[in-house]
């Protein structure tokens, strides 16, 4: 029972991170298309932002690991 909920939690965390990283990637691509000369800076900022989103998701996944 608990394992099922933990799996559900991991899935929801992945969903949230997916939406977050997806929108970061999408906006970054849009920004690079508008300003190709700033591609390097945008890419760096994109990686940092997605790392932060990922951190939140990973915290959730670790919690579901501990609960399961």
């Amino acid at each position, binding site marked *: 029972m608990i394992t099922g909920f933990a799996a559900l939690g991991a899935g929801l965390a992945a969903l949230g991170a997916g939406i977050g990283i997806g929108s970061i990637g999408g906006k970054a691509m849009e920004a690079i298309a508008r300003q190709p000369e700033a591609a390097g800076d945008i890419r*760096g900022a994109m*990686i*940092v932002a997605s*790392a*932060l989103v*990922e*951190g939140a998701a*990973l*915290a959730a*996944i*670790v919690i579901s690991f*501990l609960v399961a």
Partner: protein
Amino acid sequence: MYSAIKGITLTIALVFGSVFLNFSIAQDSIQKVEAAVAAPYSDEVHADHSSHGEEHGDAHADAHDEAPHGEEAHADASDPIAAIMHHISDANEFHIWGHTSLPLPVIIRKADGSWSTGMSSQYHAEKDGLILSHGRIVDASTHTTEGLLDLSITKNVFMMLLSLIVLTLIFFSMKSAYSKRGVTSAPKGLQSFLEPIITFVIDDVAKPNLGKQYEKFVPYLLCAFFFILINNLLGLVPFFPGSANLTGNISVTLTMAVMTFVVTNISGNKHYWQHVFAMPGVPKLVLLIVTPLEIIGLLTKPFALMMRLFANITAGHIIILSLVSLIFILGENGKSIGGATGGAAIAVPFVLFMNALELLVAFLQAYIFTLLSAIFIGMAIEEHHHEEAHH
């Protein structure tokens, strides 16, 4: 072009390594089918004492009375989750092949204060009330690590020392190359591989985030970067000298995060501490709420660093091992050769893909750890010339 060929060669080597490993496990498991079916090792998960200290199954002791020796092969065959957890956790011996393990030195302080030392191979039979079980040394009577202070050279410590030797050799050869040819001539060999990485860390990580004082922090950042990178890469090597999950061990990432925390807070200037304890421009009453939040904020940064590296690397290892386990699940632990072949047909391309992806993750996580460390340090040493612009 040349680097692409080198990358492809490396990947192919990794894939062959994985297949080779699968083969050796499969061969072993076919020999051990009956024994494996007879003994369910469902509590392997708890071998990692640090995260599962209090939960210990009863199956452990029962299983051990029957088969005190060479448990690895059984664990590999009978329960994929137990086998995966066994492979990603630390161990007191370095499992190489089948029943062959590299014995490692053991230094353990027992609950009564007495010390037990020796090589891990001596603990196959009970010694000083301790016994080797699933690669970990546990109390012979309770089969737990409760009350034991383990200061042994474990698999992860061995790995760390190995990476230390590798890094020392690499960087001393590079240093001698610079002193021989000078810094102005074109780099050669290993030097030309590492120079762009070092320049990248200095130009793209240190300079933009740390400002004028960047030089002071470059040694720390380079150290963290190369330590994480080499251990991530060695962890991806599926056979003996590699395969330890060092950067996926929470104690290691905790130590690294604490180092960043210490460097950040030691180099923090007046403005940094002012922003923590007395945010300028905030009414006194609101400070009662803001200051605790800022103090928690100091701690969440290293916590996130720790979790990110740990979870990324561990997740990568678990995914690869799960795909390998597919062979055993579909092959019903060696009973169905057709199923195992089908499982391998699915698993091998996916393991290839995941290994390639993990090569990227190995670089990316080293980069992110270094970058975030640089950003945190940069925030602590930043000079505030435009105070009013900060609120």
